[in-house]
């Protein structure tokens, strides 16, 4: 598969005019030109192939949006090479723009005062979409996301969920090869989130549109993106299959054994005992190559065993434990 996005050691620094606190400080700010540098993206490299769906994850201020803005050509990288569909985005911004679609969860691209349909029509003019293709896309996309009931309504009269669905449809009207979504489900209710996720998966599957998505909602990533890129403090810390994140970050699976009669204390080599309620014993499976078979082998006589369960920690838990551990290790910045 061809790589359509390649980032090699991309960095982005912002210069911020230094402000001094207090009233005298404010006057000082007026005449000084001191700057502090903020590193938003540091030395990030990855490659994304056509047709992938990639989740770009990280806490607030980790540099997710900055990366999206560089890939869409809005911001210029301070260092490193970045190509999207073979182009340097900021140098060929308009050519790049024709082939990508972008949705910002916190920023509307629709025309506030115009009916949704008129916004779409302007979009058609801007991108020069041939009429038949436009009509076909509008029809199929808006029926998938149930836009018909409010196509004629002014954007300012829409609910957030309706507006978001309209934003996503608009971003796809010109058949972009890549769809960038920056927190597309932010502020949406459960039903709307679900509709958006199902729709995006389908677009990725059926239209082959490459999807790059940033979010705080891990469920978005689990449902849409088989691949995950995780950043923290401006650096890349994980790039791989979403399912493998747990292993990479070293989170343990949980094992629970329930007995008909209390067998007494039961220490295992394959799993670490965390709590013992007599009949129920909880363990952590810290190594990934240990399976249930190993555990049962070790117990030997399983006649007293009533129930057994292994729980995969959900992605949210994995990431939470990762951040907690990291915060304990790192001095606060």
């Amino acid at each position, binding site marked *: 598969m061809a790589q359509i996005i390649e980032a090699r050691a991309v960095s982005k620094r*912002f210069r911020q005019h230094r402000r001094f606190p207090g009233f005298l400080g404010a006057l000082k700010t007026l005449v000084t030109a001191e700057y502090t540098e903020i590193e938003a993206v540091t030395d990030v490299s990855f490659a994304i192939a056509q047709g992938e769906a990639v989740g770009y994850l990280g806490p607030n201020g980790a540099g997710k*949006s900055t990366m999206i*803005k560089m890939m*869409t*050509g*809005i*911001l*210029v990288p301070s260092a490193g090479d970045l190509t999207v569909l073979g182009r340097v985005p*900021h140098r060929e*911004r*308009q*050519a790049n*723009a*024709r082939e*990508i679609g*972008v949705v*910002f969860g*916190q*920023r*509307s*691209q629709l*025309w506030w*005062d*115009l009916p949704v349909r*008129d916004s779409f*029509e*302007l979009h058609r*003019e*801007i*991108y*020069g979409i041939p009429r038949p293709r436009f009509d076909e896309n509008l029809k199929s996309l808006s029926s998938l996301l149930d836009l018909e009931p409010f196509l004629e309504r*002014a954007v300012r009269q829409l609910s957030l969920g309706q507006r978001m669905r309209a934003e996503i449809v608009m971003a796809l009207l010109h058949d972009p090869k890549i769809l960038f979504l920056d927190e597309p489900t932010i502020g949406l209710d459960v039903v709307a989130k679900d509709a958006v996720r199902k729709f995006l998966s389908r677009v990725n599957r059926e239209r082959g549109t490459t999807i790059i998505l940033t979010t705080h909602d891990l469920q978005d990533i689990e449902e849409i993106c088989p691949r995950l890129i995780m950043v923290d403090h401006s650096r890349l810390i994980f790039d791989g299959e979403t399912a493998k994140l747990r292993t990479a970050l070293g989170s343990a699976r949980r094992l629970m054994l329930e007995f008909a009669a209390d067998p007494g204390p039961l220490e295992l080599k394959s799993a670490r005992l965390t709590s013992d309620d007599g009949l129920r014993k909880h363990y952590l499976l810290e190594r990934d190559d240990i399976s249930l078979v190993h555990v049962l082998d070790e117990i030997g006589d399983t006649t007293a065993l009533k129930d057994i369960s292994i729980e995969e920690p959900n992605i949210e838990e994995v990431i939470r434990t990762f951040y907690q551990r990291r915060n304990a290790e790192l001095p606060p910045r």
Partner: protein
Amino acid sequence: MSVYFAFARSAFLTQLAYRHEVWANMIGKLVQVFARVAIWVAIYGGTASIAGVSLEQMVTYALLGGAVTGAIRYESIISGIGQALRTGDVAVWLLKPASFPLYVLATELGRAAFRFVILVVPTVAVVAAVYGMLPPASPFHGVMFVAYGLLAYTIIALLSALFGLVAFWLLTSFSLEWMMQAILNLLSGQLIPFWFFPAPVAVIAAHLPFAWIVYYPSAVWLGRLDVTATLSYFGLGLGWAALLAVGVVLLWRQASTRIVVQGG
């Protein structure tokens, strides 16, 4: 190019969405035009002519002067750019395969067309009916007035864009609006026509681009420029417009690489 026409058209139509604002604007505009004419009537105070200009000519000048500046809002071009920067919406613009400055200009010209038809023409007609207004000095001057008027829109739009783009460095546009307003009031001839200026100042003002916004269109209508002067100053105005357009392009090229997207 049809894209920018579509922007202008949708801006025109958007104005209709706020009906009450249209009426409020019309009343405001009417008072404004009356006031401007009333001031000149008071200054003349019965004198037939001052510096070779009759009251009738002066009233006509005041009415025509509002035709361009009454329709276009340079401050909304500047604040439009400023607001896009302040809210970070400029990012949305950079995502589109279209030029942001041209979008801002097309939108404002769409609104200007709306204001011209709905506000300027009716209010000027009402005030003209009350105080009287001179016809163009000759058919030639009448035709050239229209050409000068279009040039005036071009120049004020380009000037505003130039001022507005400076906001990319200042990250605020309010001071720029004030600066532009002060300059326009004095140097466009809107407040006082150049013929009342002291001679050296009048000569300088008459060659700066601001003069093409109010002074020249009105002066041409009144026949204060002969045929040769009318044509040569039109050429000079076109030269200014071209220069300003180049300035906008260069400044935008600089500005777009130093964008800071505020608000994430």
